[in-house]
């Protein structure tokens, strides 16, 4: 007597989600290690508040607003995908990309202002940490933008973005969460 062997394979969407969460777990350790080093070095150092006072809280607040809003538009792009609203997917992806670009534009302005004022990555421990943490975060924003632009181009050509938009959204929201902690750490807590 033969019995049928069946196996329940997880769907590609679930496998993709698990893979992305593993990536996020490794990213948490990367940013966690960097942030931990910053907190410990700052605890052991004096004079950092004077250095941190050069940072603009107003610009960082606007940038935080941009990233928080981009998280909402990314979540709405996924919601539009779930109700098969292709136009909604394209519109909300476009808003997410524009907000990400605005964030990078302000960050670039901050960098050029600081470097113009002689505050470069080699100007002391605080600035080395500042450029390392925000630069690493900016690289993640750029990576997220590349993914989002790819999805937008696919959607504009009528190709389905599928579950990939949920995966891209998870990554984008994680990048937002990293900034949620970098903002008070670098700009507000001196």
């Amino acid at each position: 007597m033969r019995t049928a062997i069946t196996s329940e394979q997880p769907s590609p969407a679930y496998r993709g989600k698990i893979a992305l969460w593993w990536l996020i777990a490794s990213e948490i350790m990367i940013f966690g290690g960097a942030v931990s080093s910053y907190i410990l070095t700052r605890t052991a150092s004096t004079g950092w508040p004077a250095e941190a006072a050069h940072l603009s809280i107003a610009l960082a607040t606007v940038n935080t607003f941009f990233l928080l809003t981009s998280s909402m538009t990314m979540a709405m792009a996924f919601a539009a995908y779930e109700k098969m609203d292709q136009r909604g997917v394209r519109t909300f992806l476009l808003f997410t990309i524009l907000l990400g670009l605005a964030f990078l534009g302000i960050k670039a302005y901050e960098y050029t202002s600081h470097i113009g004022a002689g505050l470069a990555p080699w100007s002391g421990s605080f600035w080395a940490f500042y450029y390392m943490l925000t630069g690493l975060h900016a690289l993640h924003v750029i990576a997220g933008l590349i993914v989002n632009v790819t999805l937008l181009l696919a959607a504009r050509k009528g190709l389905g973005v599928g579950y990939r938009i949920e995966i891209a959204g998870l990554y984008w929201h994680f990048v937002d969460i990293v900034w949620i902690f970098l903002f008070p750490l670098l700009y507000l807590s001196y």
Partner: protein
Amino acid sequence: MAADRVHSHHIATWVWLVVLMLVGVFATVLPLDRSVIVGLIFAVATVKAALVARNYMHLKSENWLIYAIAVIPVLLAVAMTFVLYWDVLRHY
């Protein structure tokens, strides 16, 4: 109808995030002890991160495996900082 509810839920989450962002910024000018202010702004940041993770990353409806993958590295990173923090504080 359900999609409209999802959109309004996302907007409500965003409003909370923006309000909490402003609370964090204005907390810096409160006439309180520095350590209290720092504790407050990081508590606000933690609530904001939880809102994004629960509502936008859908953690509230995920299974235990994804929770474990997300939470274990966070606990490790926090533990690493706290364990070393007291040592640094004692020596500097």
